[in-house]
C-alpha cells in the first residue's frame, strides 16, 4: 500500500481491490464497493469533507500558536493528520438527525457536522459565552441535547453513552434512519468501557458506527504495547458487528469506507467498527514534541499528510481547483481570526456570579441543599443567589 491512489479512477479501483479501503469480514464486498464508488463520486460530499479538513487545519494551527503564545490555559489537542477520517465521518452524518460524539482529535468532524467555530474558540479561550461557560475546556464541548454529547476525559466512556442515546431514540420511536457515531483512539480500545459499550451496542443491534483512529500511538505508547492482534478490525467479528478498514490518510477511501459504514448502520445492519490507519502529525498535545515517533514511521506511507493527499485528490477529480482552495483558505483564515478575536473580547466566567450548583434540582427545605449549605462553609467568594 505504498503508492497512494491519487486519481479518482485509481482510488476507486483501489477501493474495489481492497487497497485504499478494504472492507473486511467479507460482508457485501461487491455491493459495498459499488456503493463506495457512488459516495466517492459524490462531489458535494467530497467538497464538504475537504472544506472541513481545511478549516480544521487552519483553526488548529491558530490554536497551536495561541498555545505557544501562552494565550490558552490547559492542554491543546489537535487532529493534524487525522482530518480525513474525522471529516469523512462528520460529513456522512446529518446534524439534527444523527448523534455524533467526537473525541480528542475531531475538529474536522465537528466542523463538518456543523459545530460553530465560536464553540471552539470560546471553549479554548474560556469565554463564559461558550457552550461550557468556562466550566470545561478545550475539546470537552458539545451540545448533548442536539445530538452532540460532550466527552469526558476517561477514554472509552462515550461508546455506551452514544448507545444509550440511540437506545432512547428507539424507545421513543424516533430511530428510523438515525445513526450514532463516535471515534476512539487505538489506545482507548484497551479500555473496558470500549468493550462493554460496543458489546452492548451489538446486543441491542443499534445503528452505531465506531471509528477507531489507529494513529499507531497512544500518547507515547506504540500499538505493540496496546494490543496483540494484527489489526484491530479483527475485533469486529468477536463482537458480531461489521468491520471495515481504511487508509486514514486517503480522503477518497475514507469517504467511501466510512460512508459505507454509516450507510450500513443506517439501513439496519447493526453496529459497524471502522479501523483507520494513520499517523498523528503532531504531539499528543501541543506540549509534546512526539520525539518518541521513530523516523521510519514518520517517513512511511501513513506518515503522509492527508490534507495534501486530499488536495491532490480533489483537484484531480475535478471536485475543486487550486483557485477555489485558495479562496477557501483565505476565507477560513479570516473566519478563524474573527472567531478568536470575538472569543478573546468576551468575558471570562465570574466566580462571584457562578451559581456553584452541580444539581438541576432545588429542594424545598431551606438550607438543606448541599449546594447552599456547603457554599456557606466553602471558599470565598460568597455564593450568588440563584
Amino acid at each position: 500500500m505504498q503508492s497512494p491512489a491519487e486519481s479518482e479512477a485509481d482510488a476507486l479501483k483501489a477501493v474495489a481491490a481492497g487497497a485504499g479501503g478494504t472492507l473486511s469480514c467479507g460482508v457485501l464486498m461487491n455491493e459495498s464497493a459499488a456503493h463506495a464508488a457512488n459516495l466517492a463520486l459524490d462531489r458535494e460530499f467530497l467538497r464538504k469533507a475537504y472544506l472541513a479538513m481545511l478549516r480544521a487545519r487552519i483553526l488548529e494551527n491558530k490554536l497551536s500558536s495561541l498555545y505557544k503564545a501562552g494565550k490558552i490555559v490547559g492542554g491543546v489537542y489537535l487532529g493534524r493528520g487525522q482530518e480525513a477520517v474525522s471529516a469523512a465521518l462528520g460529513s456522512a452524518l446529518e446534524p439534527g438527525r444523527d448523534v455524533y460524539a467526537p473525541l480528542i482529535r475531531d475538529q474536522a468532524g465537528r466542523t463538518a457536522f456543523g459545530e460553530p467555530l465560536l464553540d471552539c474558540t470560546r471553549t479554548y479561550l474560556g469565554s463564559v459565552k461558550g457552550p461550557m461557560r468556562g466550566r470545561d475546556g478545550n475539546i470537552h464541548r458539545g451540545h448533548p441535547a442536539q445530538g452532540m454529547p460532550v466527552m469526558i476525559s476517561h477514554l472509552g466512556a462515550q461508546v455506551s453513552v452514544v448507545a444509550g442515546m440511540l437506545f432512547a431514540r428507539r424507545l421513543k420511536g424516533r430511530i428510523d434512519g438515525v445513526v450514532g457515531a463516535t471515534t476512539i483512539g487505538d489506545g482507548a480500545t484497551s479500555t473496558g468501557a470500549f468493550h462493554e459499550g460496543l458489546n452492548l451496542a451489538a446486543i441491542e443491534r443499534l445503528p452505531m458506527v465506531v471509528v477507531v483512529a489507529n494513529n499507531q500511538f497512544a500518547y507515547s505508547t506504540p500499538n505493540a504495547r496496546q494490543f496483540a492482534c494484527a489489526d484491530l478490525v479483527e475485533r469486529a467479528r468477536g463482537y458480531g458487528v461489521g468491520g471495515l478498514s481504511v487508509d486514514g490518510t486517503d480522503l477518497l477511501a475514507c469517504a467511501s469506507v466510512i460512508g459505507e459504514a454509516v450507510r450500513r448502520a443506517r439501513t439496519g445492519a447493526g453496529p459497524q467498527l471502522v479501523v483507520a490507519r494513520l499517523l498523528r502529525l503532531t504531539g499528543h498535545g501541543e506540549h509534546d514534541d512526539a520525539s518518541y515517533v521513530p523516523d521510519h514511521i514518520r517517513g512511511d506511507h501513513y506518515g503522509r499528510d492527508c490534507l495534501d493527499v486530499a488536495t491532490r485528490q480533489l483537484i484531480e477529480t475535478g471536485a475543486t481547483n487550486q483557485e477555489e482552495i485558495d479562496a477557501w483558505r483565505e476565507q477560513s483564515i479570516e473566519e478563524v481570526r474573527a472567531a478568536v478575536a470575538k472569543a478573546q473580547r468576551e468575558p471570562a466566567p465570574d466566580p462571584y456570579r457562578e451559581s456553584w450548583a452541580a444539581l438541576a434540582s432545588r429542594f424545598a427545605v431551606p438550607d438543606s441543599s448541599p449546594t447552599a449549605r456547603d457554599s456557606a462553609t466553602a471558599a470565598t467568594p460568597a455564593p450568588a443567589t440563584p
Partner: protein
Amino acid sequence: MTYIDAIRDAQDHLLREDPSVFLYGQDIATFGGAFKATKGLAEAYPGRVFDAPISEDAMMGLAVGAGIEGMRPVIEMQFADFSSVGFNQIVNQAATHYYRTGVPVPLTVRLPSGGTPGSGPFHSQSMEAVYAHYPGLIVLTPATVSDAYHMLIDGVALDDPVIYCEHKFLYRWLKAKSIDKGEHLPIGHARIARAGKHATVVAYSAMVHEAVRAAERLLQDGWDIEVVDLRSVKPLDIDTVLASVARTGRLLALGEAFPWGGVTAEVVARVSAEGFHLLDAPPMRLNAHDTPVPYHPKLWAAHRPTPESICDALRRLLAI
C-alpha cells in the same frame, strides 16, 4: 406489603404513569430480578424492561445517554457492590453532566445495599458515602416501606442522577399494612422516627430500626431517645438534625458503613460546626468495624452496630 413490594409497586407506577421511564438491569426482565423487584413488569410493560449484559460501566453509560435524550432510566445493580464497576460512569459522566453542559441527566440507580447474614464482603456493601462525596448526585436511603415507595417515585422525577440505596435486610422483613399513596414527606426532609428527649440518634436505612429497637430497650432504664431518620444523605437535612439536638443536647450518629468518613462523619462534623452550642456532651459515632463485611453470621452481627452496641454507646453518651 413489604419494602421490596413497595419498590416493585413504585416501578409499576412509574412505568404506568411516565412513558419516559424504562428499566434496565441484569436478569430483571422475565426473571424479575435477583430480588424480584421487577417481577411481572416485563410482561405488563412490553419493551420497557430490559435484561442487561454484565457490563455495569456500559449500563451506566447507556443510562446517561438515555437521560440526555430525556428518558428516565431506572438501572438496577444486582448488588450495590457491583456498582464499583460502573463507578466511573456514575461519578464522572452522570454526576458532572449537568454542571458541565447544562443538560440534566435524569437517571436513577437502584443499589441493593447493606448486609445480611452470610452475604460476605461483596454482597453487603453500603456505598452511600462514596457517591455522596461526589457533586452532582442525589443519594437516597429509605428506611420505611412508605419511603421506599415514595422516594423512588419522587427520585425518578428529579432531573438529577439519583443513587437509590435500598436495604436488602429490609426487603422482606419490613412490612406495612398499606402505603398512603397521597401526601408524603418530600425528598430533602429528614423525619423524626421516634420522638424522645435525652439524646438524638441520627440514622438512615436499616439502622433506623436498630436505633428504634435500642431506644425501646433504654426506655426501661428511663431514657427517652429520639431517632432521626435522615431519609436522604445528600441532600442532608441538617436543620431537622439540629432541631433534634437542640431538644436533646446529645448526638449519636449511627451507620452501618465503614468507619472512616461517611455519613456519620458528615453528620457529626455538621452538627459540631453548626450546632456546637446545642451539644451538652461530645457527639458520638457508631459505625461498622474497619474491615470488609465478613461472611460468617457471627462475625457479621458483630461487625455492624446492633441494638446492644447502640445501647452501650448511648449509655456512655448519657453518662457524660
